Each structure stands twice: as structure tokens, then as C-alpha cells.
């Protein structure tokens, strides 16, 4: 769901940048207030993990591919504000160095994956795991469910941003200027593949890593 350049018109990509920057600012402030120097290596690994996990493209019927983002998992391990920055760093490198995701779309992509994905994932995790112990099965399920919901929210936001383009960015003759697919096409396309496959991939990856930490380094989850 890395939106390329040319799919979003300036109305949308401008708004998405405007929506994203405050989160980056608050995240920086939060990190400044709560971060300890010894946490830096874990934040670095979080960004690295997000980058590499997005390279695993998974095919689905219909001939398209998708990937996990690691947003929920990273938020569980380093907190949502640091995770916002970590996933944003990965996304920005992908856009600038590898052309994966547009430069005009950095705001949108970061909002969908690094902000919405992170906070929805973290919120659902905290909700479902409330009151449970670090090593409990509920934590595992919470991580999986949170990751599933989080990725689907990211996908839905992406689909909405793409799908409204024919409505709001039109030529004088009514032709779409940017992404040409309406909501009625974009939403089912993105939703189905993320509800039926990619969401589960994200959930399984998240649960597996949580399980690893539960057994080997539970203090990472505490």
C-alpha cells in the first residue's frame, strides 16, 4: 500500500502531509521526554525491521501482491510514538532511495501505515490485553488481533484516499486527473485482499515474534 506519485492529487497529498507533520512533531517531543539513551539501539532495530518486513511481497489471487508493515509489533515493543518515527523512517527511505511509494505521497503513506497503523494497532493491543500478564495467551491473541485490525485500517485509509480522487480531482470535462478508480472499486479491492490474506500475515508475524519474546526475553514486552 505504498501509494506512488501521481495517484493522489495535491488536495489530498497536501492534507495528508498536514495531518502527518503534527504527529511527527509530537512523537519527537514525546521521545525527547521519555526516551533513555539505552533505548536507541532498540529503536534502530524497529526501523530496520519495518524496512525489511515490507520487502516480503505476498501474492494473492487476482495477480496483485501485498506486505506486512510491522507497525503494531514495533509499537508494542518500543511504544507508539517511537514506532511512528521508526516506520516513517523506513517508509521515507523506501520512497527516496528505492522509489517505493511516491515523494508527494510520503505524508499519506506515513499517515496510513506509520501513524494510523501504529496507533490503531497499539490501541487494540492494549485494549485486548488489558489486565493480562506478559506471558499469557491473551497477550499473544491481542497482538495478532491488533495487527490484523491495524493493517486493515491502513488499507482502508489507502483505499479511501485513492478512491476519492475521481470525485475531487477532476478535469473540466469530468475526467479523473489522478487515481482513476472510484471508491466502489478501490475499497473492495484493498479490503478483500487485506481482510482475507495480508491481515492474517501481519497477525501471524506479530504473534510469532511476541511468542518468541514471551519465551526468551519477556522484559521486552513488559
Amino acid at each position, binding site marked *: *500500500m505504498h*501509494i*506512488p*506519485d*501521481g*495517484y493522489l492529487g495535491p488536495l489530498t497529498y497536501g492534507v495528508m502531509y498536514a495531518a502527518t507533520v503534527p504527529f511527527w512533531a509530537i512523537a519527537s517531543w514525546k*521521545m*525527547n521526554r521519555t*526516551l533513555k*539513551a539505552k*533505548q*536507541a*539501539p*532498540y*529503536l*534502530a*532495530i*524497529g*526501523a*530496520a*525491521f*519495518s*524496512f*525489511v518486513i515490507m*520487502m*516480503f*511481497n505476498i*501474492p*494473492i489471487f487476482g*495477480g496483485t*501482491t*501485498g*506486505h506486512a508493515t510491522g507497525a503494531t509489533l514495533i509499537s508494542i515493543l518500543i511504544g507508539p510514538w*517511537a514506532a511512528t*518515527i*521508526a516506520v516513517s*523512517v*523506513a517508509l521515507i*527511505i523506501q*520512497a*527516496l*532511495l*528505492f*522509489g*517505493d511509494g*511516491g*515523494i*508527494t505521497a510520503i505524508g499519506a503513506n506515513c499517515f496510513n501505515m506509520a501513524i494510523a497503523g501504529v496507533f490503531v494497532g497499539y490501541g487494540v493491543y492494549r485494549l485486548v490485553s488489558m489486565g493480562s500478564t506478559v506471558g499469557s495467551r491473551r497477550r499473544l491473541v491481542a497482538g495478532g488481533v491488533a495487527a490484523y485490525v491495524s493493517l486493515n485500517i491502513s488499507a482502508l485509509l*489507502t*483505499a479511501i484516499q485513492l478512491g476519492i480522487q475521481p470525485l475531487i480531482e477532476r*478535469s473540466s470535462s469530468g*475526467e*479523473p*486527473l*489522478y*487515481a*482513476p478508480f472510484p471508491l466502489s472499486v478501490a475499497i473492495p*479491492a*484493498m479490503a478483500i485482499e487485506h481482510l482475507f490474506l495480508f491481515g492474517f500475515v501481519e497477525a501471524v508475524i506479530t504473534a510469532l515474534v511476541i511468542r518468541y519474546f514471551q519465551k526468551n*526475553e519477556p522484559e521486552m514486552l513488559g
Partner: protein
Amino acid sequence: MTIIKKLWIGIGILALLSPLGLIIPALLGAGGAWGEWEIDMIEKIVGFVPEGMKRLADSGKAPLQGYAVPGQSKGLVNESFVYILSAIIGIALAAAIMFLLAKLLVRRKKGH
């Protein structure tokens, strides 16, 4: 072994396995992600290229566009090799930038 070392080993393994993200889609004949098509593919799908998209779509000018090196030989083996290199570069950059950001933010505390 410290936790950090173990995590880095995990990241390294992921980097080495990353070509699966190329090979498995290729085996199943899958294209790119939905809504991430290039201009010529859009033209095939909808029959035209929207004006704004024509203007904004980048002409593939990122240094390592598509996790590939310009002029690299075709074939899954070559692509996989460069894919792993891209993974390593991206991992190193992401980690380095994040580490630097973290250090910068910690240092900016009042009276520090």
C-alpha cells in the same frame, strides 16, 4: 548473547530471505500491489493515463528504483542478489537514521 545481538541476527536472516518477496510472486505470476501500477499498466487497465498522473508520476529516478540497480542483468538470481543488497542498505540506513534521531532527541533535554 545480548538481546540486541540476537535481534540483529534475526534482521540479518530476514534480509537473506527477502528474495522470497520476489520469487514467490514471480512463481505465481503476480504483478505489483493493487493501486501501485506504473503508467503503462494504468493505460492497459483503464485505457488512458490521467493528466495529473502523467505529470506527477516519477520517471523512475530514485537511485535504486524498484530495489534494483540500473542496468542490472535480468533473471531471478541477479534480481535476488540485488534485492538482498537493497535490504542490507535499507536496513543499515533505517537503523542509522533512527539511532541518530534517538540520540539527538535524548540530548535535547533541558539542563542536559
